[in-house]
């Protein structure tokens, strides 16, 4: 029978058609097809450049021969590289902590505003986040201008001398973190606000009946209910902050004395401006293991809590 079917093309085509029909009716197939444009987009815009960066990072300076991990070994011996690692961690961790605290506090304030006026406040507080960072950073650059700083002009009215906002290593680090916090806090605020709105009111009522104080309600009700959103927001922000480029590039270009360079800006300096593309690619790839470790820990914690629930 199989022999006959094999010799009969009509039967074969019919079988193929019905199996294709079945395949097309599967939910997983439909889901795959619907996700295909996005998968292709990610492959072109993310996977290919990432793979290409890995390939570049394994080449010598002249891009003529394979050197394996040679570029990474070279980086480990450079003082400037370790300064960049230190500065990137300081920049990302400090900024994320402050963004989280400010976002949390402001979200509570907004949550307690009567719903009639809340929309206006939400809109206004989101402004720093919705303005393109390169533009808002330019405004900050004028405020921090070495010679004509508007902030220094205001401080002078209070008898405070000129602050070298971008001219001295400590102040320059403070300035880039400040701008990052200013831009990023609204994102935390809006995420936390959404989380706050989803906390059931009955839990607070029950806590009040039990005589919980304001602080106990935050600690035992709000925070546990928001843990997942806090973790995901922190992870997302950590990734974005580590990979930041525009703020540092516009404000300090990594100076003074390389003290504000982060991975992105130093990779650009070494790779594009300095003409050592393989080394630049190696610097930018150094973010991957750091972020992978952070992502693993945070996501594992979220999954664990998810299964507990």
């Amino acid at each position: 029978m199989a022999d006959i079917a094999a010799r009969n093309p009509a039967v074969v085509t019919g079988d193929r058609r019905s199996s294709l029909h079945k395949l097309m009716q599967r939910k997983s197939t439909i889901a795959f097809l619907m996700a295909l444009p996005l998968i292709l987009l990610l492959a072109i815009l993310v996977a290919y450049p990432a793979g290409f960066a890995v390939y570049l990072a394994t080449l010598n300076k002249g891009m003529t021969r394979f050197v394996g991990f040679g570029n990474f070994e070279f980086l480990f011996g450079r003082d400037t590289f370790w300064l960049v690692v230190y500065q990137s961690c300081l920049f990302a961790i400090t900024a994320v902590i402050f963004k989280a605290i400010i976002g949390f506090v402001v979200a509570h304030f907004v949550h307690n505003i009567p719903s009639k006026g809340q929309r206006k406040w939400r809109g206004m507080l989101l402004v720093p986040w919705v303005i393109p960072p390169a533009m808002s950073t330019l405004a900050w650059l004028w405020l921090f201008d070495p010679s004509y700083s508007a902030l220094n002009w205001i401080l002078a009215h209070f008898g405070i001398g000129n602050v070298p906002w971008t001219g001295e290593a400590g102040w320059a680090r403070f300035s880039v973190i400040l701008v990052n916090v200013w831009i990023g806090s609204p994102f935390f605020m809006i995420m936390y606000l959404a989380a706050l709105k989803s906390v059931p009111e009955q839990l607070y009522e029950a806590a009040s009946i039990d005589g919980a104080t304001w602080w106990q309600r935050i600690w035992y009700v709000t925070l546990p209910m928001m843990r997942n959103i806090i973790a995901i927001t922190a992870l997302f922000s950590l990734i974005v902050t580590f990979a930041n480029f525009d703020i540092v590039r516009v404000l300090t270009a990594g100076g003074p004395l390389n003290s504000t360079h982060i991975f992105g800006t130093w990779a650009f300096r070494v790779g594009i401006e300095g003409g050592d593309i393989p080394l630049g690619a190696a610097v930018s790839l150094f973010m991957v293991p750091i972020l992978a470790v952070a992502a693993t820990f945070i996501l594992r914690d979220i999954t664990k809590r998810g299964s507990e629930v």
Partner: protein
Amino acid sequence: MGSNKVNRRRFVAGTAAASAAFVAAPFVRGAYAAGKLSVGFWDHWVPGANKATEALVKEWADKEKVEVSMDFITSQGNKLLLTTAAESTAKSGHDVLAFSTWLPSRYADQLVPMNDVVEPLIKANGPVNGTVEYLGKVGGKWLAVPATSGSQIKGPCSRIDLLKKHAGIDIQAMYPAGAPPKADGWNLDTFLKAAEACQKGGNPFGLGLGATSDSVDTAGALFHAFGAQLVNEKGDITVKSDPVRQALDYYKKLMAFLPPDVPSWDDASNNKFLVSGQGSLIMNPPSAWAVAKRDAPQIAEQLWTHGFPAGPKGRYAPFLPFFWGTWNFSKNQSAAKSLVTHLSQASSAEKMVIASGGYDLPAFANLTTFKVWAEEGPPKGTLYHYPNPHNHQTLSIAAAPAPHKIAEQIYTQAIQTQMVVRFAKGEAMDKTLDWAAKELEGFSRN
């Protein structure tokens, strides 16, 4: 069916007829018979300066029957640099592209030799300065043609009134318009004393010490004035030397008289400092003067562009040339060379210089005496000494004579200004030199 078959007899008859028609047809030269050419120029700072280049290209295209597409690519945000890197990697792009200072040597293996263009130009327009040769010629091969548009000397631009008032220096007498400089006394000691006097008078000199080009160029010229090389032409690290120590000592003294924020200055800071009326001297091409002419004419009237102070090893001024080059994957290399030759003629160069208000600077010795520099003003003659018409100073580039791959890293990572700031802020000399030596060691890798 038989009629559709092409037999031998019919084929011969057909091809013969076609050949006869082809031979008999008159030669009609199309509007763009010589093909297409795409050109990427540097987008000029000076408004309207691109127009001269555009007109020259059109003039050539009409004559040569070539269809030309032109892009003026800004260097703001490193767009030109990124375009060059992308074209090099993709092996596709403009037939003629503007290459900034260090790029011809960076892409040496991918550029078409231009000896057949540059050598006749040198014969016609005089020799090029040593810096242009160092940057554009490797192993006897001209990698690109020195361009007029965008090339510049970053010499001192001073306030006539403030130098007179605070330091007792008559800069116009030292650098008279239309005559050779009388600047034997204009040396690094005089410069330091003048910097101190102007700082005490409330109008300090504005010499940046950041990581951008203006700061690096100034530091480079002052290091050259002491004979201070970080790496020699063989690639040996020579940073731990007496001339480097002397240069750092001098800069430490000078930095005390500069505004405290100079380590964070970028290429706009010095211009703003001068145009605002605060500064009495900056190191810049005439763009600061041009902006002052538009925004603060009373300050522009007091500005004078002149030569660098001399040091123990000579008088050096930073020269930053642009080049026009052609990729070896360009499809129309002969047309590209023809266009670049046309743009490099004396008459073309003069048009570009005029359109840029005297900013652009041809690299050839005989092209530094165009009328425009003598006539631009106010004050009249302010740009006379800008193109170094009397060869009064040696035109140089920071990090030379190190091999290009090392020198480019020294330049882009601003090693000299970083050394100056480290030492001036209290770091021990040996520690600064050790730091620099380690950085330089890293740049030497292949």
